[in-house]
């Protein structure tokens, strides 16, 4: 998806009338992250807790191998690995923070 800066506002090509702060793309990333959590949990025979923003990753039902798989898979899908330059933000603790990390990384890529 191409983006252009026009008169100081951001517009998404081919999406007339989209909100200037790109909610569509952000929710697309959220959908992908959530889908990735679900398929990984299923593949690893893990019982995944409902994905709410305040869900602690520690309590999600996933182990570190699951997260390793999710990070690798999302890197393939989205082309970003926000953990590679995880400076002051630190590791995400909740599902909401995890999604934010990817939204920020995908946004700064453009």
């Amino acid at each position, binding site marked *: 998806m191409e983006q252009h800066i026009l008169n100081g506002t951001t517009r998404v090509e081919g999406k007339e009338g989209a909100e200037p702060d790109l909610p569509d793309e952000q929710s697309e990333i959220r959908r992908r992250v959530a889908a990735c959590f679900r398929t990984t949990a299923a593949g690893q025979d893990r019982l995944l807790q409902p994905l709410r923003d305040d869900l602690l990753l520690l309590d999600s039902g996933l182990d*570190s*191998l699951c*997260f*390793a*798989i999710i990070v690798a898979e999302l890197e393939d899908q989205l082309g970003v690995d926000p*953990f*590679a330059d*995880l400076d002051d933000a630190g590791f995400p603790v909740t599902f909401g923070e995890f999604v934010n990390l990817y939204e920020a990384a995908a946004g700064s890529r453009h």
Partner: protein
Amino acid sequence: MASLRARLAWARPDPASRIEAPDASLGLCELATASGLGPSASTLAGRSVLVRTARQIGAAQALLELDGVARRLVLCPPDLAAAHLPYVVGAAEVEAIVTDVADPALQALGVPVLRLEAPRAPVPAAAAESEWLLFTSGTTGVPKLVAHSLAALTGATAPPAPAGERPVWATFYDIRRYGGLQILLRALTGGCALVLADPDEPLPDHLSRLARSGVTHMSGTPSHWRRLLMGGQPGAFRPGYVRLSGEIADQPVLDGLRSLFPHARIVHAYASTEAGVVFEVDDGREGFPADFLGRPGPVEMKLADGSLRVRSPRTSTRYVGPDAGPLFDAEGFVDTGDIVEVREGRCRFAGRRNGVINVGGLKVHPEEVEAVINRHPAVRLSMVRARANPITGAVVTADVALVDPAAAASAEGISDLRASILAMCRSALPPHKAPATIRFVPELRITAGGKLDRSNA
């Protein structure tokens, strides 16, 4: 120990037996009785001589010329970069070069260069015990040299068969590498014809040449043989003896060869440049019997720290060069670096010690994962490697080449195949060993040495 040329003469080769390349050949009888180096051959006596040839057949001739004459002969593999030649000349104290081609890079090395001609001149006296220096396989960067003797190199070679029962040898290997050199030495000391491969020759042409020359015994790596299996039809080529070495021979390749060549004796051998020829297995099963370990005899094997150790008269004698480390442990065993697992009376190779993937502290050998993936009916070949991961340090990732690449043409096809391969891995392997990601690739590179190219792994 008699020289290689003397042993060829003793084998009394048939006048019709030749070493054949696609566009050239040399008769074994001429090679046994005449020199192609002319009068300057005598200047090589007692020298350290580099064999750097453009073609395999030139290397075969050079080795016959030099063994027993030179103090030391250094056999360059085909892919040795010219940039490494000055190092090799220094490390092996090279005093002369024998070649089959006009090469300015050789002239620049500052030692005499002798060009091979057709064998016509009288053979020089050969009374020396030549040391053979070979390059270890699979190394990158500065080449690593190991020393051998002809006796060690031919330690696994049978005496000549009676005339009329002699095999016609061929190999997919280049004879300038250990695996191919074994076959060259078997052919020469056994007085047998040998058909050389050419990397530029299309496989169907190669196979029909093998059939025309009446090849009975053929050797190659499992990757070489898989390439033949992929082709499906060997045409009129029907070897009676099929030999695999240089890589792990897994059950699918053994089974594939069994069904393609139902009447052949199929042997997988374990050998390396450092350890020499260690053993052969012909029961059609991957791995080797556990009672080989600790078995008395000239070739002794044991496991230490998980890897196979070998003490044998066929091992090389030492590493050569300014930074050469020790080859043997205190008891004279060579560490092959190949990890062996023992299960139900059978030893199986689980990969190289240095190829281990560490997933959150748990070790994964790429080969054990590849073995599972390769069992999937849609999979032609796979290569498993480490992928850096911020959570576990590394995860397992697999590059997969399919039998039918069109199966991965659609997103749906990719997703179905990925799910089915992963399901297979998860049922056969602990979770950390199943690939985290799978990528479908049009093909997997095979190195010039015939092995899966793990250089980017």
